């Protein structure tokens, strides 16, 4: 490789050869043959590399040619038959695609019997008893420590009345009682504020289930009548299970995901 610009300098001072253009033209004409001879006679890795390069160039050239051809010839646009056929009265309307809500009632019933559930949060951090309850001292000298106050969100049914204060061991403060949950449908991706009907299972233990404590991972039953779901038998579905996904005692609201 030339170091410096002495070649250009000479060309500037003395010009080029007199037959420079002629030779250049002929050399370029011969270059095609040279290239093809090279491509045919190279062997080994060199030959493969040359072949690969040539193929890539050929494919690219073909594409550009086709593109040019397309614009010159006129063709009727072929409409593809799309999925999701709707009748004429629904064509101009944007409908939210509803997830098909079917056939799961039988499966649900079977799972209920088995006690097994496919839930979005299979494992949750276990909550210790001292985290769940706070000891309340009672009695004249405040020495008795048999009462406990629940520190997590709870659900008590609509007809709930407290036991006589002298005998109630577990206190569920009304500030931590919730009736509604924000339930998200996993497929529709929309959230509804639905009433809680009851607590189905708290993973921390049956005692918490019976108390109605809602922690992360608890399965609750919500009232879905406003969603307008119908079973194949024609009955209207009004209760469905959902799993709590947040820590309600920290957030002040219950977020759950519907189990479909």
């Amino acid at each position, binding site marked *: 490789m030339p170091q410096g610009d002495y070649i250009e300098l000479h060309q500037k001072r003395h010009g080029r050869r007199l037959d420079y253009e002629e030779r250049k033209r002929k050399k370029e004409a011969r270059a095609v043959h040279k290239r093809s001879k090279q491509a045919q006679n190279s062997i080994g890795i060199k030959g493969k590399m040359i072949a690969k390069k040539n193929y890539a160039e050929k494919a690219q050239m073909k594409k550009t040619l086709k593109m040019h051809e397309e614009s010159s010839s006129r063709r009727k646009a072929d*409409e593809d*038959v799309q*999925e*999701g*056929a*709707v*009748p*004429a*009265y*629904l*064509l*101009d309307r944007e409908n939210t695609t509803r997830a*098909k809500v*079917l*056939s799961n009632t039988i499966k649900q019933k079977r799972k209920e019997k088995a006690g097994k559930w496919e839930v979005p949060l299979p494992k949750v951090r276990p909550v210790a008893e001292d985290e769940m309850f706070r000891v309340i001292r009672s009695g004249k000298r405040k020495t008795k420590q048999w009462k406990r106050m629940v520190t997590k969100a709870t659900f008590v049914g609509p007809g709930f009345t407290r036991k006589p204060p002298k005998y109630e061991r577990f206190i569920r403060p009304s500030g931590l009682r919730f009736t509604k949950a924000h339930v998200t449908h996993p497929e529709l991706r929309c959230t509804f504020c639905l009433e809680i009907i009851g607590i189905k299972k708290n993973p921390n233990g049956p005692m918490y289930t019976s108390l109605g404590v809602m922690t992360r991972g608890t399965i609750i039953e919500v009232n879905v009548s406003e969603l*307008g*779901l*119908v*079973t*194949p*038998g*024609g*009955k*209207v579905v009004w209760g469905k299970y959902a799993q709590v996904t947040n820590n309600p005692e920290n957030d002040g609201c219950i977020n759950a995901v519907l189990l479909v």
Partner: protein
Amino acid sequence: MNMETSQAGMGNTVMCLLTDPEGTNLGSAMYIPQTAGPLQLTQLVNKFLNNEEMLPYSFYVSDEELLVPVGTYLEKNKVSVEKVLTIVYQQQAVFRIRPVNRCSQTIAGHAEAVLCVSFSPDGKQLASGSGDTTVRLWDLNTETPMFTCKGHRNWVLSIAWSPDGKHLVSGSKSGEICCWNPKKGELDGNPLTGHKKWITGISWEPVHLSSPCRRFVTSSKDGDARIWDVTLKKTLICLTGHSLAVTCVKWGGDGIIYTGSQDCTIKMWETTQGKLIRELKGHGHWVNSLALSTEYVLRTGAFDHTGRQYPPNEEMKKALERYNQTKGDSPERLVSGSDDFTMFLWEPSVSKQPKKRLTGHQQLVNHVYFSPDGKWIASASFDRSVRLWNGVTGQFVTAFRGHVGPVYQVSWSADSRLLLSGSKDSTLKIWEIRTKTLKQDLPGHADEVFAVDWSPDGEKVVSGGKDKVLKLWKG
């Protein structure tokens, strides 16, 4: 005390005046015993009209149906015995359709959602169009597929039988129309092109105006309606004028074509030259659906519940007879349902102004349908209710609630006593008009029900929807 005894003395009879729905009196006011119920009144009316056979009638006092003896009605409503009681009588259909209550067959066959179904006017054949671009003909005796008609390039959005049952025409999403021979299941000629966007509705010319059936009109999203001739296979007239999509088209019994459009207007066209006669304005949003009071009789042509076949020249006469019987003396009525949650009742040949505005729905009205005898209007809406209105005055009668999803389509039984509705919640429901309650619930579809139809002979109901199967229901 005196009042009571005098009332008791007069208590045996009451002065009544029988009138027909149009207002003409039947005889003069007469004394009728208070124990007379609908049965005795029927006998009376039959005698006065000199009917050869006993025809059934229903009686209405101030728009409320009279189901109990006259005396009980008087007591309940505290109507004075001294005033003349006007009782309106209406003839009911002679035949009675049995309500369907079971699914006799679920026929699979379509590869995509079923978009439209239609029985032939004689009730012997069934055709359905679907998103898999085929039209299928089904055998009703064995309840199995008969023919698969391929020829469309995109979803088949609407199908229509000619009123004599000899032609079947279907329109697709790519704007082409195919004519089929229903006996062989073959394409008749080539697909008819002309429309640039999808076909929203097809309507045939009534048989009593021209027999055999040749002309039909189609409406499309591109804003015009075209009148085609099925034998010449070309467009006769193109009715342009709407600025937005034409959502529905109906060929009226008096030879006028009505088109409803998304530009909130309804236009009336005359059919010889394709000129605009009138424009009916009033709606605030898209006009979704039109219905004529004589629609059912125009669709079935010369066929009636007896199932007799007529030779071609007699067909026209018989169809005209049936048309005049249903129409009566009053002009043809048109009802239009719109996205602005209301419907208008028009008498288009009389005036440009609507006769009545029917409000009450809380969501858009998707489908409106007159009963076969023209006495009731049923409207299906996205607010999950079906409303029943008086077909002559447009007064609201009752709302049928029960569906939990938007109601897509309604269909009447041939005797106008039962109403069928299909909804997005995958159920069909049959409502009884006399008691105004739910008669039968027909669940079973796995997904939304897009199209329902009741056969003109009343035997079967067919429904098709997103779950790609056709369900036949029987009584």
